[in-house]
Structures are given as C-alpha cells and as structure tokens.
C-alpha cells in the first residue's frame, strides 16, 4: 500500500498560474521553432537565388571578356607627352648649349694645343731642313 504524501502550497493560485503560463510558453516556443525554421528555409532559398544570380554575373563577365578586344598593355605604344618634350627641350638645349660651349672651349683648347704642337713640329722641321 502506498503512503499518501501531502504538500502544503503557500501560493496555490500563483503556482497554478505559473503552471498554465509555462505550458502556454512551451507551446509558443514550439511555434517559434517552426517560425525560425520557416525563416531559415526562406533564407536558404534566397541564398540559392543569390548564388544563381552571381553565377549568371560571372558568365556574363566571361562573355564580356571574350567580346572585348584582347590587348596587352605592353603592346600599346608608349605615349610621350608633347608638353613634356617641350619642357625637356629647352633644358636639353640649355644643357646642350652648356655642353657645346664647354665643348667649344675644350676643342678650342685642343686646337690651340694641336696648333702649338704643329707649330713646334714645323719649327723643328724647318730647323732640320736647315741642317
């Protein structure tokens, strides 16, 4: 024979309320579980849709690459901006002038040296002839 056991509940209404409310919350939690699953399924569909769209974009990009002319940058002619050339020219001229001036001076010096040597040589030759 089983012994009966009695428990005194101080707030029976509150306990009853809590039992009912917790049952209600359990049902709501189960409903929410379904809602979360539906949202996830919808998200999964959207992700698959996005994947398809991105695949289409990739295909179109490859198509575009095929249609576009295939040029290598290295094969393109190198541009020499005219302005730069114009800017460079006076500098070159200046340096050229400087160089020519220096060159002229150097050549003049060389010429004078040669002339001097030639003169010396011719002097020696005349002396030799005089012998």
């Amino acid at each position, binding site marked *: 024979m089983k012994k009966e056991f*009695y*428990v*005194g*509940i*101080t*707030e029976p209404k*509150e*306990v009853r309320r*809590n*039992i009912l*409310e*917790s049952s209600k*919350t*359990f049902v*709501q*939690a189960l409903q*929410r*579980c379904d*809602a*979360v699953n539906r*949202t*996830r399924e*919808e*998200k999964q569909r*959207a*992700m698959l*849709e*996005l994947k398809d*769209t*991105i695949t*289409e*974009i990739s295909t*179109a*990009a490859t*198509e*575009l690459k095929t*249609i*576009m*002319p295939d*040029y290598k940058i290295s094969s*393109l002619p190198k*541009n020499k*901006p005219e302005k730069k050339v114009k800017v460079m020219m006076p500098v070159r001229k200046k340096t050229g002038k400087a160089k020519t001036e220096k060159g002229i001076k150097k050549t003049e010096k060389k010429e004078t040296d040669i002339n001097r040597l030639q003169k010396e040589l011719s002097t020696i030759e005349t002396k030799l002839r005089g012998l």
Partner: protein
Amino acid sequence: MAAPVFVKIEKYNEVNETISKIRSRLEEAKATLKKISELKAQEDQEIKAWQEELGKMDQKISFISENLSKPETE
C-alpha cells in the same frame, strides 16, 4: 596626365548589352542580399525572443519547484 588610348571594339552593341545584363543581375543580387539580411535579422530577433521565453519558463518552473520542494510544516 596620361594620354587616352583608343581601342577598336568590333561588337560594341553586344558589349553594351552584356554590360546592361550584368548591371541588371547586380541589382537582382543586391535585392536578394538585402532580403537575406532582413531574414537574418528576423531570425536573430526570433532566436532572441526564444531565449527570453526560455528564461521566463525557467523562472516559472523554478517558482513551481520552490513551492513544491518547500512544503509548509506545522
């Protein structure tokens, strides 16, 4: 400033069509991504509410348990 380079494009109309197709698909992708983002936010909100509900349930069960485990004694 770099000088412009002129490149001959034989299938110009086809290029334009492909570009507009890519643009259209990109708009679609943007819209789908926005939808995914919204769904994710919705999912996060649902999970958060779920957690709150579980917390409430925990409190209620604890209250019931406390009442049952501490019987009134004379």
